Each structure stands twice: as structure tokens, then as C-alpha cells.
């Protein structure tokens, strides 16, 4: 059965750091599972499609913030770079970065879902 720490390894996060800050495994687990419901990624995809770069920036920025709180380092890093690229509107790097964020998000979501099913938490 996958432990929370193993889940963090799979998604490129830092379990020790988050545990230090939020002090209880129960709380960390609660928010990790909640991450699946966060709409920011959906919003990011939608606004990129609509070419609404202001909203895309906000969405990327929000994802970055959440990842920082949860020490989802890999996704946090790519979304941070994406946010910077979108801060003043579309830039050429933005599209490539969006793909990177997409990949990282998938991996993160997959890892959490795996943790979820294995631990009967769905």
C-alpha cells in the first residue's frame, strides 16, 4: 500500500518539508486529496484556449501558491515559471511551459489518485 511519503516521491514533492509546516499527517493528507478538486488547472487550460492571458496568469499563479503550500515542488516550479512568462501577457516561452505544466499536473494527479485508491480513500 502506498504511503503518503511514497506518493510525494512519485509526484516530485517534499514530504518532510510539508509535514514540518502543517505538523500533522492527517492534515497533509486532507489537503493532498483536496488538491484533486482544485479548479485552477482546469481554469488554466480554458483561459489559454480562450487566449485570456490575464486569467491564465492568475490560474498559474494560484497553482504555484498551492504547490508551495503543499511542497509539490516539481509542479510548483513549472507553474511558477509559467506564471512569470504570462505576467505581462503572452510570450513565446509560454506555450512550451504550458505543456510542461500539463505534464507535471498529470503526474501529480495520477500519483494522488493512485494513493487514493490504494488507501480506500475515494
Amino acid at each position, binding site marked *: 500500500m502506498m504511503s503518503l511519503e511514497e506518493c510525494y516521491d512519485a509526484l516530485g514533492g517534499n514530504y518532510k518539508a*510539508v509535514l514540518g509546516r502543517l*505538523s500533522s499527517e492527517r492534515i497533509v493528507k*486532507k489537503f493532498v486529496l483536496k488538491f484533486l478538486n*482544485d*479548479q485552477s488547472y482546469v481554469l488554466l487550460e480554458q483561459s489559454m484556449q480562450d487566449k485570456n492571458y490575464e486569467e491564465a496568469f492568475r490560474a498559474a*499563479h*494560484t497553482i504555484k*501558491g498551492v504547490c*508551495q*503550500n503543499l511542497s509539490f515542488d516539481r509542479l510548483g516550479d513549472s507553474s511558477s515559471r509559467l506564471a512569470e512568462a504570462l505576467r505581462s501577457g503572452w510570450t513565446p516561452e509560454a506555450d512550451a511551459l504550458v505543456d510542461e505544466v500539463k505534464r507535471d499536473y498529470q503526474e501529480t494527479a495520477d500519483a494522488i489518485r493512485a494513493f487514493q485508491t490504494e488507501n480506500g480513500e475515494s
Partner: protein
Amino acid sequence: MRNKQKILIADDSEMNRAILTEMLDAEYEIIEAEDGTEAVAALQKYGTELSLVLLDIVMPKMDGFGVLMVMDQHRWIDDIPVIMISAENSSFQIERAYDLGVTDFINRPFDARVVHRRVVNTLLLYTKQKRLIDLVTEQIYEKEKQSSLMVDILSHIVEFRNGESGLHVLHIRVLTELFLKQLVTMTDQYPLTQTDISMISTASALHDIGKISISGKILNKPGRLTEEEFAIMKTHSAIGADILRQLPFHQNSPHVKTAYEICRWHHERYDGRGYPDGLKGDEIPISAQIVALADVYDALTSERVYKKAIPHEEAVRMILDGQCGVFNPLLLECLTAVSESLPEELKQDTARMDPEGVKELTEELLRRHEITSSERTLQLLEHERMKYSFFASLSEEIQFEYTEVPSMLSLSSWGAERLGLPEMIMDPMHDDQVCSIADMESIGRLSKLLRATTPEQPNVQYECKLSVGGIERWARFICRAIWSSDMPPQYMGAFGKTVDIHEERLRIEHLEHEVAHDTLTGLLNHKHARKRIVSQMKDDPGAKFALAVLDLDDFKSANDTYGHMFGDEVLKHSANQLKSSVRGNDIVARIGGDEFLIFLKYEKNLEAIMDRIFHSLLGTYKAFPISFSMGVAQTEIAGTDYPGLFQAADHALYTVKRSGSGRYCFYDTSMQEGNVTFSMIDKVYEEDGRDDG
């Protein structure tokens, strides 16, 4: 058990709000906002009940900086600590936040213990300060009271020698304060704080202390002073200043400096021709300029040994005309502005210091640390809010509150449910749901009425239609405008209720209709017909009108032979015939038992028209033959005075009746003299061979 302190968390990410809530909700009541406008709405709703705001920067609709600016505008920033939470960490953003009054910055990622400690510390700091403020305010009030008391007593002693009543000192203080307060609202040229104003008013009492060195003979001389005497009198300003200059202590106190200015220069003139130093324009300190004006006004309006008192309006006029010296035009504007309220203000017992003034003073002195509400006030507020909600829920009325900035409408729960609207609506004038219930023109008029009110008379009643659930009903708005306590007062919004008056309104409309109409026939009654006729003639002075009076021939026999019920039917039938024989704007009325009236406008060919009408009335009703006699008067001949016109028609009718009924005739002037001249068409009713007469 005390209530939990309230904390507002504004962050667009649900996740972030959840994490912070997790860390704090055991000890605090958490209120959430997911963007800037919701945050402002929460601030509006809870005001200083909020002990702390955790504010994100990046949010849709209004970002964190936007919220800070609104808080600054409303001075909430002074009362509510803000901790900025953000993933932004550029020093530019951080500096900007601190400039806007943020208390602290917490970076992401959130560490539970750090967040907790920071929040607790900030709250502790602010609570302690709140308590200190109350203490200090008390002290300041006492101190001010004491010092003005001392000054007043001492200056009274000085003035006593002049034979003054002592009111002079008081008046100068009041006038000085009034003029100063007016001046700062009118211009930025003289930046004076409430502290400054207070100090100048107090110091004004000392303006004539130099008179202590002037001989009593000169001070109390009832006649004009000689040139020498006047020269001596003039020295009192320099002497008073010297006395102050020679004080062995307090030389650096702003009070003393101000008193010196006022003493020495309150007889200078704006054009430079005053004394003792001949200062010109704004070389004269504003404090001295103001006291000079106050002194002149009070001298004019008080009784003195050498003159009688001059009434207020005249004194003001004299000053404005330049008869009493030359003043700074700005000051003259101040005088004009406060002129109306002057006599009232001077009458009051103004020896006390007003609490508003103390409050402002305290605020200025303790800028960053003061808080305007104590804990007790917060508790009272909480109680008021509970009471209000409770009564609102009982009353089954639509109660509402509207604020201008931010533009927001709140409804009582019952009201919201009834109208099918949410309890809180931002920017209601542009909200689709609101627009579907009330039309914007009516709301616009209501808004105008509210803005036209004054703080003394803030209540407004207004009726209009509301569309609830697709049905239009009449509603009455009973509301009150909210005015701020600044000078001049600003319109801030309104609150009130709306009551459904639909049934009442319908009933009134119905009653009004009943009053104007005859119940049996549904025609107008004479009184109301006359009203309308007079009105039509007035609105159309050049037009040609005709008034006809007619009565049913042999109506009595219908009643006698067939009974009153039948008679009524005949009347109803005739009324209907009448109605259908005329046009929309023509007036038809029942003016007596069996008498009717027609009034109409015509272009030409009146005869043809009346002929047609007359004939359409004839006929039978259930075998009862209907015959009319009619007299017609034209405004062209009989004039537009109603009694005259009516009488003319009546004369014509009488003429017909005398010569046999069953026909009509036109009025002409010969009828007045009693001559009967048949100048119309002679129609004999002969269908069933009835005899005439």
C-alpha cells in the same frame, strides 16, 4: 464566554483558504472572500468587528492592492490590521503593501505555527492599543478643558476693566473657531489641523491683554477718543505682545507663539495700513487675521460705552462693504458662508469643548495607533445587529439597505426570498435581476428624492410599481437617507422598507371613479363633468364648443305606468344611446333625474352633428317611446363662462319645452329677453302619432 474574534481571509484559491482556516478556526471565527469585491463587501458588512484581514494579492475582480486602497479611503486601514499573504515576493510588491498600511507579510508556503503566532501577536498588539486609546482620550479631554478654563478666567479679569460683560472673550473664541473651520473646508492655502484650530481659538482669548496697561479713563470714555488718546489705545497690541515675550517660561510653546501673533497683529489690515507694524496681506499670520475679523464683528454687534449694538445683518453688510477695515477676501467669504448660523452659535453656552473636537484631536495626536471603537461599542453593535435581524425576520416586510461606495444592496432574508433575489447584490443598478423587478426610471426618481434630502429631514416616501414573479403590483417605499457627519455632509446610501399597497391603491382608484360617476348609468355626474368641461375649454382657448342639456320627455309617466325599475332601465338605455352617439373626447353626463348633458368640440356644421345625435336617441325601449327635448348653446354665442353657458343651454331647452317638446333648438341672444324666436329646425316627432305638448 467571549465571542470569537473575526478574521477575514481573502484569497481566490479555495485550497489556500482551507489551509489557513484549518490553522485558525479553532480559536477564531473565519469569514471567507474569494475576490477583492467580496472582501470589500465583508468589510462593509462587519466593519470594525473584524479583528484582522489576511489578504492575498492576486485575485480576480479586485486585487489585494485594490482592497487596500478602499480600506484606506474609508480609514478602515487605521482600525483593522492587515496581514498580506502572497506568493509574490518581489521587494517592489512588498514595499507597496507596506506603504498602503499593511501590518505584516506572510509568505507562502504557510507554516502553521508561524501563521498562528503572527496572527496572535498582531491581534494582541491592537487590543492593547485599543485600551490605551480610551485612557489617553480621557486624559486629553480633561487637559483641554482645564487649560481653556484657566485662560477664560484670566482673560475675563482683563476684560473686566473695560466694563465688558466677559462674553466678549467667549464670543471671540466661538467666532474664531467657526471662521477657522469654514476656512479649512474652503481652501488648502492654510493647512490647519484640528489641533491648530483648537489652539488658535484658545489663544484668541488673550488678544487684548495689552489693555491692562491702558488707563481706565481712556478705556471707558463714552465719547470719541482724541488723537492722542487713540494713539495710546493703539499701543495695547504691542504691549500685550511684549508681556507675552517677557514670560520667563514657555517661550517655545506653540500656544504662546500663537498668542503672541494674535496679540501683536490683530489690528493689522490686509492692505498694510494697520498697526503696529503695517504688515500686509499674508505677512499677517492667519490666526491674527481671523481674530481681527472676529473682533470687529463682535465690537459692532455688542453694546459698548461709546455705541449701541448693531444688528447682525447690518454688521455683516458693513464688514463686507469694507466699512470696517480691509480683510482678506477669503475671510470675507468665510463670513458670508457662516453668516446665517452666527447668531445661533453665539447664543449657545460654548464654554465647554465639543466632544467631536476632542475626538478629532485625539485622532490626530495618535495617528497610527488609535482605534475609533472600544470593545463596549463593538458589543453594542453586535447586539444592534442581532436585534435588527430578529425584527426584520418577524416583520415579513422587504427591508433593504443600500450603500454608495461600494455600490451594494442588502435585503432582509424574508425580503430576498419574496423578491427572488440574493441577500446581497453588488452594483444593483446594473444587475439584471434587480432591473427585472423595478424599472430603472422609478428607481432613478427615488434615488433623486433621497439625494435631495438633508441630514435634518432624511425621510422619503415614494410609490411605484414592482414586478414580482411576473406580476405587477404597487409598492410604497418608506426610507431614510444616510448622511455622513462631515462638513459638508456626503450622501452615503439609504435604508428602509417597501410595503405592498396594491389592494389599497386599487381601492382608491375605484373609489375615485365612483365619486365622479353616476351609479345607475355610469355616466359622469354634474360636478365632475363641469370640472372636465372647464378644463377642456381652458386648454383650448380658440376652439369652438357646444353644450347641450336634454331631458327625457314624459319620463314621469314611464315610472307611474311601468314602475321605477322600468324607469331605471329606460334611463340606462338612454345613457348607452348617448354614449355611443358621441366621440371619445366628448363629455356625457347625467345631471338630474332624467336630465343629461353633452359637451363637445366642433369645427363647423354643428347643426348636422346635433341633428345626428338627437336622432340617434329617439326610438323605443320595450315599446316605450323615447323622446327628448334638447337645448344647445355654443361658446361662440354664449361665451366660455360655465354658468353662463349652461344657463344658455337651459334657456334653449326651456324654449323647446314651452313649445311642445320632442325637438331641439339652439340658443340665441334673443332668448334672454324672453322673446321666443324659433331659429332652428322644427322637427315634429310623429312616428307613432303622439301629440306634442
